[in-house]
């Protein structure tokens, strides 16, 4: 109970260590979602609207990657960025950039899979109408993405939730270096193992609050979509 009160103090008094960790966590997850969106939305739309040999295999793989264990993603990025790895010369291992790459790897399949499903469903619904209106391929793609925008934003928020709550990948590629690559989840893991519960609990409270806010935002998006688009 004393630990809980101390944790609350840390949050309410704006403890600089705690908020530096929160800031870095949000920045890393936000960057990862932006990059994952830039990759996932076009890939998902392409998969939804094109037919090619092996398409279904690609869809199965992307769907499977939604459940990719974070430690495996972390290990893959670690091997890629380690000194002897193909991208070792970039010197990114144990930096926030490496954490962004790892989270992008985790989040991009989620966004691609959700985008694919959303656009494909809408494309089936609109297919005959757009064909009857002689809508060209480019306008068709833009129409589908625009009309699915609320669902796509929800997909991005789902990706952000996954990134913000993830620990396995970033602890491997970030190294959990204090003041440099320490995020909420890695700090919670470390502080708990050290027995410093107030900071761990304080970070946990902030993390849960963020996750609730993200879900509230996703819910609001869905409601807004229903209200404005029917």
């Amino acid at each position, binding site marked *: 109970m004393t630990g809980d009160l101390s944790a609350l103090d840390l949050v309410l008094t704006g403890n600089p260590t705690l908020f530096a960790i929160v800031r870095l966590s949000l920045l890393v997850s936000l960057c990862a979602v932006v990059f994952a969106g830039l990759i996932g939305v076009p890939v998902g739309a392409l998969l939804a609207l094109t037919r090619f040999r092996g398409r279904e295999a690609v869809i199965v793989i992307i769907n499977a990657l939604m459940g990719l264990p974070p430690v495996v993603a972390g290990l893959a990025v670690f091997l890629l960025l380690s000194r002897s790895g193909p991208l070792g010369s970039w010197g990114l291992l144990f930096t926030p950039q490496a954490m962004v790459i790892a989270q992008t790897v985790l989040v991009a399949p989620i966004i691609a899979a959700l985008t694919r499903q959303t656009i494909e469903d809408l494309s089936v619904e609109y297919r*005959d*109408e757009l064909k*009857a209106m*002689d809508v060209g391929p480019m306008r068709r793609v833009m129409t589908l993405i625009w*009309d699915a925008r609320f669902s796509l934003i929800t997909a991005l928020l789902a990706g952000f939730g996954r990134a913000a709550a993830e620990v396995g990948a970033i602890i491997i590629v970030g190294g959990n270096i204090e003041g440099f690559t320490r995020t909420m989840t890695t700090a919670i893991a470390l502080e708990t193992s050290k027995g410093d519960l107030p900071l761990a609990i304080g970070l946990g409270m902030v993390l849960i609050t963020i996750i609730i806010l993200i879900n509230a935002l996703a819910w609001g998006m869905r409601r807004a979509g229903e*209200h404005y688009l*029917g």
Partner: protein
Amino acid sequence: MRAPDSDLPLVLKDARIVARDVTILDRITLTVSTGSPTVVIGPNGSGKTTLLRAAMGIIPLTSGDIIWGGREPAAPRRHAIVFQRPAMLRRSAAANVRYALAAAGVPRAERHERAAELLRLVGLEKLAGRPAKRLSGGEQQRLALARALARDPTVLFLDEPTASLDPYATKAIEDIVSAVSAQGVKVVMSTHDLGQAKRLAGEVVLLHRGRLVENTPAPDFFVNPRTEEARKFIAGELLV
């Protein structure tokens, strides 16, 4: 709407569509000319929807030809169709019409006014800002009509536009169809409602099991049907 420069007649020659070894249209030969509405009737599964979609170019023929005004139908630009269950774009009623106008190449500056005119024509001006998906079934059909008319069509295909609508909504659609037809747009419409065919048709095409059974002016069809199938259909007997 401006007076259409028709690219009729529409000629189907031995039009045949086979899907998964099932013959949906069986060597249909038919000429659709300018004038009052052509109404395609027949029981469910007779090929009415497929015939309209094929004529519109949405479904390819397995064999045979479709010829518009003596030309091959490379790109029939001023034909429009209203489906039995039209999909509403996820935007307002007015934005649905503006989208159709944009797709038809109408300049942006004219779209707002033209959309308002079309919504007035179908009686939806008061619902212009409402999300299209939240309109009732009858209102959605009228909006689909407005979208189709945005193409300024010479030929308007209507696939059972009043199926599952109540009499009030049906009358609203029929009034619009009559008005559009009176302005010179050729209406080709499918229905399995004989009363509607009597009210609207200038010419009747009866299909059964993908075959064209009869194609005659409406008065002759209803008074003096030439085939046994037509007689049974008019008498309300089951065509199986």
